[in-house]
């Protein structure tokens, strides 16, 4: 009745204009990509080997025809890999669970956990190597300490999110422990167990990597075989590792774990002869600049001046972190539809899933090592490795999440389903996962330095090698500070809590 004259038509929005969540996130992502493109000229992306394709062919042949017979004591290395992963994770739980209960209340514990998390397992290994040598103690502590920090944070988050109704319904006067085991722990149990399981899988990868610093796990033989060009042997070892990961649901069954833990404890070793004096000297003297211990401030400034210029190394670390994250985003966006039930046919889906499992179970250092042999030492192999591994990991989670979505208009074509039904629902989650991964990616950029990529890790590795523990430890602190800063930044940038794909394996 009141509509006397037609209202003027609403103006058509311009390119990517508007305030809807989708458009906002698209602008956000494009800014990220643009930043990476602008900074790309500063990265050293040269291909330095003369004939990468011939090398690639040899590697592919090695993977296709593994030389099983050439392996020396593979079962022993395999057993030690599992033992270190299992006991390292258990150590992390034992240390991390009590910390998780104190985590919300103590700023000191939160800071300590952030520090333990910010240093990669391999760097912890390098540190403990100086005290405990090539022993099981080094391997276990290298896993248990960072994992304690991770468990403390994640367990605390899970416990914080349980519904409060059962706790509020209880009568008063119940002790803290009874309240916890009846009205809190059962509600959190499934998620705690799922996350712990995922962490154990990470621990298996990390345990393999410990071979790269000389501990006799699977990675030791793998690295030697790769470095010496015995690709058929390396292929056999890689297959062994994939079989180990793929068969995890069977041998890692809940009921078998106690048996496995006891059995594998026998394989741990050798144990170091612990010298208290040596340990104390390392902790109290070796890792600190002598000038600091003497209170000589002039000397400390001179010591700082002698440290090589860290600007380029920090720049490379951050640049690689950014490039790796953007690369992972692109890889994830390309790969997830391959493994998702809404696209393709059973054969393509099987192939897609196989590819994702392959990429995400290969330790990123392994991938980087592979590309390094192929392309020579520049940022390029590190970038490819980070983008592929993390992109595949995100794609895997997104595909699983997409499988659970029931499209409102199932008759749409593939492109329509992707653009209108699935991507709008999934993209906030993809971006949130990416920001979670950004911290992990940065931590990994540092360890890629051990392969000769000029990040902070390169200098840490070199200083440990020259036995300059004070400089190495200082660089570790710088790395940790950088990681904590980037973690804080990514937490601010990532989409809100509601967007996050609910999965224990997101971090």
């Amino acid at each position, binding site marked *: 009745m009141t509509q006397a004259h037609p209202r003027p038509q609403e103006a058509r929005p311009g390119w990517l204009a508007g305030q809807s969540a989708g458009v906002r996130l698209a602008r956000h992502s494009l800014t990220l990509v643009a930043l990476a493109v602008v900074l790309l000229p500063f990265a050293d992306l040269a291909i330095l080997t003369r004939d990468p394709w011939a090398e690639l062919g040899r590697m592919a042949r090695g993977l296709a025809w593994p030389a099983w017979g050439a392996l020396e004591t593979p079962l022993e290395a395999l057993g030690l890999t599992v033992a270190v992963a299992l006991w390292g994770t258990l150590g992390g739980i034992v240390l991390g669970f009590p910390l998780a209960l104190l985590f919300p209340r103590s700023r000191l514990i939160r800071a300590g956990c952030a520090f333990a998390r910010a240093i990669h397992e391999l760097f912890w290994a390098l540190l403990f190597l100086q005290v405990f040598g090539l022993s099981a103690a080094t391997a276990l502590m290298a896993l248990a300490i960072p994992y304690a920090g991770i468990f403390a944070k994640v367990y605390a988050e899970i416990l914080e999110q349980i519904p409060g*109704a*059962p*706790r*509020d*319904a*209880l*009568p*008063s*006067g*119940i*002790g803290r*422990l*009874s*309240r916890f*085991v*009846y*009205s809190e722990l*059962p*509600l959190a*149990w*499934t998620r705690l167990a799922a996350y712990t399981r995922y962490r154990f899988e990470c621990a298996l990868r990390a345990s393999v990597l410990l071979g790269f610093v000389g501990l006799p796990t699977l990675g030791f033989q793998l690295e030697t075989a790769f470095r010496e060009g015995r690709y058929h042997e390396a292929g056999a070892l890689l297959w062994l590792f994939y079989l180990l990961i793929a068969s995890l649901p069977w041998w890692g069954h809940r009921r078998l774990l106690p048996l496995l833990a006891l059995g594998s404890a026998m394989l741990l070793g050798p144990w170091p002869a612990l010298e208290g004096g040596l340990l104390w000297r390392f902790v109290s003297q070796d890792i600190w600049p002598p000038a600091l211990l003497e209170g000589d401030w002039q000397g400390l400034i001179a010591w700082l001046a002698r440290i090589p210029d860290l600007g380029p190394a920090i720049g490379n670390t951050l640049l690689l972190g950014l490039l790796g994250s953007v690369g992972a985003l692109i890889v994830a966006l390309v790969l997830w539809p391959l493994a998702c039930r809404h696209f393709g046919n059973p054969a393509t889906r099987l192939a897609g899933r196989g590819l994702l499992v392959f990429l995400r179970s290969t330790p990123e250092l392994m991938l980087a090592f592979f590309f390094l042999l192929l392309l020579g030492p520049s940022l390029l192999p590190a970038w490819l490795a980070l983008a592929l591994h993390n992109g595949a990991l995100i794609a895997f989670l997104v595909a699983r999440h997409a499988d659970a979505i029931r499209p409102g208009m199932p008759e749409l074509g593939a492109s329509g389903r992707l653009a209108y039904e699935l991507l709008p629902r999934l993209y906030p989650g993809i971006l949130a996962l990416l920001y979670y991964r950004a911290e992990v990616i940065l931590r990994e950029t540092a360890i890629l330095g051990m392969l000769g990529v000029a990040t902070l890790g390169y200098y840490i590795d070199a200083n440990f090698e020259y036995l300059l523990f004070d400089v190495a430890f200082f660089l570790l602190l710088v790395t940790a500070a950088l990681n904590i800063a980037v973690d804080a930044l990514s937490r601010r940038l990532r989409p809100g809590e509601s967007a996050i794909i609910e999965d224990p394996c997101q971090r």
Partner: protein
Amino acid sequence: MAGEPRSPLVAFEAKDLGHGDSVVLSRLTLTLCPGERVALLGPSGAGKSTLLGALRRRLGDSAAWCPQQHGLVPQLAVYHNVYMGRLAEHSALANLWNLVHPLAGPWREVADLCDALGLDGLMRRPVAQLSGGQRQRVAIARALYQQRALFLGDEPVASVDPHQALRLLALIDHRHATSVIALHQRELALSHFDRVWGLRDGRLVIDAPAGELSLADLDGLYPDADTDADGRTGDAASRDRP
């Protein structure tokens, strides 16, 4: 209204009740006397849960509490959920052991209760696998197991059929001298309780013996869907803590 010979268990005198800063029930005046069975009526969002919460705080350990969302732990068995009513009476060690292997005494007592509530044979079943009505009975069993003199229930018979509701209320009456129970079955309120408190828009508009009230009086509490919707938004807003 005054002139009760016995001293009241709880007496509110022009009291404001709410969560934090937001007042849900303003200037509330009422008394609860020993031996009274009170039905608490009112549209959702009128402040029933707020009033029960305030009573629970006042009465402390003398009241058994049966909350609206049941407050059960879905992963634990029926037995353990009922046992939780008396967690405070055992040592932490006994409570831990009870999770591994049920204590003999409590197992027998809970089994008797479960028989009375029609939950027999379900004691070892996780609560997550029960139907809505069964869960409600588990919540009542837990409140009964506390063995207190008073019973406070926030819609404990909301999702069971009328026949069963009568049986459950009789069981509650049998074991508690005094009770305050939020309901939405008006007929039950008149037939089964001594007194009715009626809340509307955050005010106590009915406080009278059940015998002096008619269904028409109670209808005044639920005027139309409009008020109900208002009440709901008010309730939601008060629950949105910063």
